[in-house]
């Protein structure tokens, strides 16, 4: 292999490795290449890379080769990571949100009953993220707080109103397998035919 091509591939491998890339691993990937060449190409690639790309750097640490950002930019990297919208939900929070969205207004004990799992952390997370809000109290014993979805919920999910949520029926329609699907075929006894028709004319 040309050294220039090898250097490109080495760069790609350092990039995709989720732990430092070792020479032993490289030997496995390139069984036909000389180890000295591998090491030499790697070092040359790193020299060139670090000279030119000042936003990242490749370093040889005890366990292998590793690519990372440079310490002098960490302040900016941290700043960027903070801007990321915290729109992601845990599975528990998602499930609780789903129950609230479809059963609103709904109380804490009712959510517990439907989910069969305690949801206090999930409800708190959803309140923190402003996806749900309180809707007064239910006029039953204990006067539990009612929860419903917020305007932010609609914005976040790109909904004009709650009526845009798919219904259970619509979801179940999707679950139905199509009729006439090929999986219903019974292949018995057709091998002969198959070979016939595969013959060139």
């Amino acid at each position, binding site marked *: 292999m040309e050294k220039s091509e090898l250097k490109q591939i080495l760069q*790609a491998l350092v*990039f*995709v*490795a*989720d732990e430092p890339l070792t020479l032993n691993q490289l030997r496995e990937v390139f069984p036909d290449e000389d180890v000295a060449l591998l090491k030499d190409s790697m070092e040359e690639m790193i020299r060139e890379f670090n000279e030119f790309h000042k936003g990242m750097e490749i370093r040889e640490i005890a366990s292998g080769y590793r690519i*990372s*950002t440079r310490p002098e930019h960490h302040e900016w*990297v*941290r700043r960027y*990571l903070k801007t990321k919208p915290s*729109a*992601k*939900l*845990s*599975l528990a929070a*998602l*499930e609780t*949100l*789903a*129950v609230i*969205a*479809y059963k609103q207004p709904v109380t804490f004990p*009712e959510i517990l*009953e*439907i*989910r*069969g799992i305690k949801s206090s952390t999930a409800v708190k997370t959803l309140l923190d993220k402003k996806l749900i809000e309180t809707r007064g109290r239910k006029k*039953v*014993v204990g006067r539990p707080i009612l929860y419903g979805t917020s305007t932010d919920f609609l914005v976040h*999910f*790109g*909904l004009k109103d709650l009526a*845009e*949520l*798919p*219904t*259970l029926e*619509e*979801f*179940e329609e999707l679950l139905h397998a*199509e*009729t*006439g*699907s*090929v*999986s*219903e*075929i*019974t*292949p018995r006894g*057709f*091998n002969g*035919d*198959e070979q*016939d*028709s*595969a013959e060139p004319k």
Partner: protein
Amino acid sequence: MEEQGPAAPMESGTAFQDETAEETPEVLKVKLDIFEGPLDLLLHLIRKEEIDIYDIPIARITERYLEYLQMMQDLNINVAGEWLVMASTLILIKSRMLLPPDPEAPGTPEEEDPRMPLVQQLLEHQKFKNAAQMLYERETIELAVWENPKTEFREEEEELISATVFDLIKSFHAVVQRFQDKIVLEVEHDTVTLEQKLLELRSLLALQPTLYFSSFFERKISKLHLIVTFLALLEMVRLREILVYQDRIHSDIKIVKVA
């Protein structure tokens, strides 16, 4: 299956055949899979029979099409409604072609051609097939590249998902399923007695002198519970412990403790 006709549609001319040609046991399945519906089959027949799409010999195509349907039935494939609808469309076009043109009918000869709507539909379908091919090629390229798998900054979080509307309904569906399973279990182990229910209702009324009938149904409880609740209420009316009435017809039934 010995005659030529029905077997013929399986010789596919499409590009997708060759990929799977060696895998003998699955070949038949894959080949049938090529036809994503009646339009797909028609396009295949047109190509195979080397037909000009703007001048389809409708009788011949209809015949081939029906042969194919017969073969599907022979193979015990459940022939969906769409395939039959297309069959009747073809037969209808065929019979219209036999009618002499109406000299008083307005419009140009092309517009009169009873095949045109189908041709338009086929052309449209072919466009989307080509678009799908383009997506397939793009996907192949994109599946050959990798993104940065890690950064030292990415925290180890519990699995988080960017939820969509579809996630909401999927999640709710799962909860409802789980809940329904639970109800079945509860019913099996349910041992509520009338006495228990009477005690429960009395303590409830001690706290809250007015109850609404609907509140018993808000929580999803087992049928047995509902029946026993109902019996308990009747019993309490009989014992004159409660009054039951409605403000208006069809309004919620009020249950009031007799002082």
